[in-house]
């Protein structure tokens, strides 16, 4: 079937099998490999994207369900001025080792901070429960979230 949707602000019209995942369509058909495929069962969060402003696992969305939708992936978070503060914070806090979990975490953290600009550690832990990292032990990820929160409020950025 034909899928028409907006991805990172750009209109896309592509052919998909309706039952394939949005993750597959993004990576294999639209040339957007930033969103990672690790488990295909909703457990790891490395495929986290926004669909119509809501953070979801792209591996659990049927491509056909994105018809007419607005998708934002990790590739869509930076703007002309450079990487998003969440991305800068991850790079500078050492929150990235192998980097496989990073794109999903960046989107998930972006989502947390857009709802609660100064989350407590308990709230961060709960909000990131669906994102697994096998490398960092999460401490540096927490540092990155706190530092991103500070940067965003300094820059007056909500999203």
């Amino acid at each position, binding site marked *: *079937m034909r899928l028409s949707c907006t991805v990172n602000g750009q209109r896309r019209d592509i052919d998909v*099998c*309706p*039952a394939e*995942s949005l993750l597959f369509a993004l990576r294999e058909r639209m040339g957007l490999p930033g969103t990672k495929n690790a488990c*295909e*069962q*909703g*457990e790891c*969060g490395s495929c*986290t994207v926004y669909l119509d402003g*809501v*953070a*979801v*696992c792209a*591996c*659990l*969305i*049927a491509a*056909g*369900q994105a*018809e007419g939708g607005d998708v934002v992936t990790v590739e869509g978070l930076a703007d002309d001025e450079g990487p998003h503060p969440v991305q800068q914070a991850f790079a500078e806090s050492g929150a990235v080792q192998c980097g496989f979990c990073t794109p999903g975490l960046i989107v*998930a953290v972006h*989502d947390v901070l857009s709802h609660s600009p100064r989350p407590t550690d308990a709230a961060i832990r*709960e*909000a990131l*429960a*669906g*994102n697994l990292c096998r490398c960092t032990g999460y401490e540096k990820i927490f540092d990155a979230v706190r530092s991103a929160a500070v940067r965003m409020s300094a820059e007056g950025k909500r999203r």
Partner: protein
Amino acid sequence: MTSFVQPVGLDEACEAKAAEPDLVPLAGGTDVMVELNFRRARPHGLLDLTRVPELREWSVSDGCWLRLGAGVSYARIIKELGGHAPALATASRTVGSPQIRNRGTVGGNLGTSSPAGDALPPLLATGSTVELVSVRGNRLVRIEDFFTGPKENVLLPDELVAAVWLPVGRGPQQFSKVGPRNAMVIAVAALATALDGESRRVGVGLGALAPRPIRAVEAEDFASWALDWDGGSGIHADVAARFGALVAGACAPIDDVRGSSAYRRHAVAVLAARSLRWAWQEYRKDKSCG
């Protein structure tokens, strides 16, 4: 895979299901897509329900019943329904992760009918009713009659779950779940308790403790009889313990990688006694405040 049908209204969805009963309904996809990704299922076609507005609504009628559309996400239940459906909202908080709660629905939990589905014990404890719909009309099924076996239910090939009806404002409710960590766990044991101050009944729903989600009727009868509804005096330790034992007795748990049947029985007895005490405390507090 031949078809992907995207109705934009409930009538249209029912017509599609009647015309092609093999279509697999697809709501949040958090169960269906795992099956598809791992090629455990190769459906003839999918019926995407996410564009059916009727399924995404809830309303409260006469202040007595909450009609919850099958397609309302857990995230919305947590945000919008903590007051009307406290046990269901608490259970929703324990489902998966934010990403899963943003998509997953009670209709999908009913469709899957897993013995461990977290939305199901609250529906059982509160005495909820499932509304099914097809081109032939609507029918109501009491929640305890909905499940027929592990992952089996009474849905006919042309039917969809339209909504669930939950009684509101009857009294305190509790939900507890045991698992190896605080998030992203399938329940090892789950229990919901609901007090109904009007009919003076205690309802108990159990998850992951039998081949299907069940009520603990003997325990319900015992607690309803033993509690001092008029005087509101505290619960005697023996009453709480007896209640726990009766709940454990209602279970037919399995041994599996997540827990032994003996552990499950023990855990639910503890949860039950605790939940009854908590719920009763709240009931007494509400009563003394008038």
